[in-house]
């Protein structure tokens, strides 16, 4: 009796293994990509931009399998999630939030055969690269758009945390607005975090209460601010993902969005070919990582022309941070003849003249 049941058990186990292996053998993917997000991919913002790019990579390279994990905290928990993806066969991992850098670097040390491309940091290793989009100069044409469309000359900018890159975005925005509308003033409200929806709604309401009629933002998701502006009849300029324009059919002017797909496709192809080279890649408008969103329905043709011309100027290399530039306390921060380039974008500790706000 024991021998017979042992044989039956053995056959069952074998059948089970074959059943498991069969689908695997049938269509082994060319490459398994893992991606971890700090929020939800349906945020019309930062996380969505990565998700959309990876879906495009799947279209560009047939046979790519995508593993995604949302709401992964920026802590050691992220290591566990990435290890799980590697166990499932992932060979290319995209940790998409700044705070995922260290956990990802730790996992990279343990798995030299798995490649990592981290967004927004600086660490590098043989299998670990870093990249991000240069957004500061790209905000200049957004300022131009806002400066032309505003009727009250008051622009509002909600930022999550006043890091140098966000402050630089505000500065470029105001410089652009002033270039077409010398009376334009940008007021900055800081919510304290990259993703606090109730605070973002309250901040947007506060700016609208004080007379702003165009809102821009640098937070993870533009959705709440865009919708608040739309509900109160104000205009908005989006950020992170150009898909946010669906939320404001009347008030949307334009916006900036990340287009990671070309870079991601290149990296994925290099991993498949075995030619991955770590790099620190930062591309801006016109260089492949940042794009200007389509204009809203209520933007007149002459404004579209001016904004597109301004965006082209930036894409061709115009640097809005060319001196003399005075900050909002009267101190000259960039002297005549000087200009601040890409490596100084994280160093902004002051707002330009015309911005109402204090960095710290």
């Amino acid at each position: 009796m024991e021998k017979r049941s042992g044989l039956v058990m053995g056959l069952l186990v074998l059948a089970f293994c074959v059943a498991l292996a069969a689908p695997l053998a049938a269509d082994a993917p060319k490459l398994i990509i893992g991606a971890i997000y700090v929020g939800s991919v349906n945020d019309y913002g930062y996380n969505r931009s990565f998700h959309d790019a990876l879906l495009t990579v799947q279209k560009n390279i047939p046979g790519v399998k995508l593993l995604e994990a949302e709401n992964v905290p920026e802590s050691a928990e992220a290591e566990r999630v990435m290890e799980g993806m590697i166990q499932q066969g992932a060979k290319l991992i995209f940790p998409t939030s700044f705070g995922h850098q260290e956990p990802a670097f730790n996992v990279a040390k343990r798995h030299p055969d798995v490649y990592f491309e981290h967004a927004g940091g600086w660490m590098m290793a043989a299998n670990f690269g870093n990249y991000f989009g240069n957004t500061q100069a790209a905000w200049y044409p957004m300022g131009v758009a806002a400066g032309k469309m505003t009727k009250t000359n008051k622009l509002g900018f909600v930022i999550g945390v006043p890091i140098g890159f966000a402050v630089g975005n505000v500065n470029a925005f105001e410089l652009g607005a002033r270039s077409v509308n010398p009376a334009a003033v940008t007021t900055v409200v800081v919510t304290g975090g990259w993703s606090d929806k109730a605070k973002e709604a309250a901040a947007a309401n506060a700016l609208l209460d004080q007379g702003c009629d165009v809102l821009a933002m640098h937070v993870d998701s533009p959705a709440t601010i865009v919708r608040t502006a739309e509900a109160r009849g104000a205009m908005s300029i989006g950020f992170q993902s150009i898909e946010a324009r669906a939320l404001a059919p009347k008030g949307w002017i334009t916006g900036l969005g990340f287009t990671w797909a070309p870079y991601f496709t290149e990296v994925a192809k290099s991993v498949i070919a075995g030619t991955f080279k770590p790099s620190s890649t930062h591309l801006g408008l016109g260089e492949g990582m940042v794009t200007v969103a389509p204009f809203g329905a209520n933007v007149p043709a002459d404004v579209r022309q001016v904004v597109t011309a301004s965006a082209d100027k930036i894409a061709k290399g115009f640097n809005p941070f060319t001196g003399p530039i005075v900050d909002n306390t009267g101190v000259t921060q960039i002297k005549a003849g000087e200009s601040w380039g890409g490596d100084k974008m994280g160093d902004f500790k002051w707002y330009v003249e015309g911005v109402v706000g204090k960095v710290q």
Partner: protein
Amino acid sequence: MNAPLAIGVIAGAVLSGTSLLYATLGETITERSGIVNLGLEGILLIGASVGFASAASSASAYLGVAAAALAGGAANLLFGWLVVSRKANQLASGLAMMFFGIGASALVGGPFVGAVITGLPKWRPSFLAGLRWVKSTTLFNYDILIWLAVPVALLVWWALFRTRWGLGVRAVGESAAAAFASGRNPAMIQYQALFAGGVLGGLAGAHLSLSLTLTWAEGMTAGRGFIAIALVIFSKWHPLRAIAGALVFGGAEALQLQLQARGADVSPFLLDMIPYVLTLLVLLAWGGARRLAAPAGLGRTFYGSE
């Protein structure tokens, strides 16, 4: 402080303060019956996510409000089973409920992140609509939850202080043993108080997702549940003083944002501290008598009714 700033602060105070008021009222009822619910944050999140999910699936924000209220009540009943029937420690169970709420709300709300809903309709009385200083603001242009906030506070006051049921709730909160000896059923009364408190907590969460932000994101209440617990103490367990507490905290939150929006020459980090510092200052200034104002049986487990 001039007119636009004052109006902005009042407008912001009402918007932010409403969900705080509902949460505080709910917690007031449960604490009056002797039960501390530290898991209020979880109840708010459950209300917000269930409300948003229902509104997104049914295209009716009012259905979302009803679903949020029921879900909050049910969650509080679950908490009640832990602390009343199983007689577990209230503080630990409350924290466990908070984590449960965070997880359950993420599970329920997950499929609906990014859904676009119409939200609760707003209504402004016509005789105010024409006023110049009202028109461009959010003043008096409110959804039903904001309009009902003060009436509900009055209802809670009336229920607790003018009805037999309320007398029973307060009796159980002061001394469950005495209430039991006088013929009441402390467990049943605590369950009823918990359900009422949970319904109000669910409404507080629903207001956040169905009216203020029109979205759902994990953990979106950002600590409001704990602020409400502090406001219950701030208002000495009295529903009418809770209105003042919610307005003070909501107003402080609005003030710091309005000050930034007007270009105050103060660091935004310091301004961000204003609501919490203000709450601490008020508690310090009027703190002494609060210890005596708490229901005497708050947090104690009654073992006698088996």
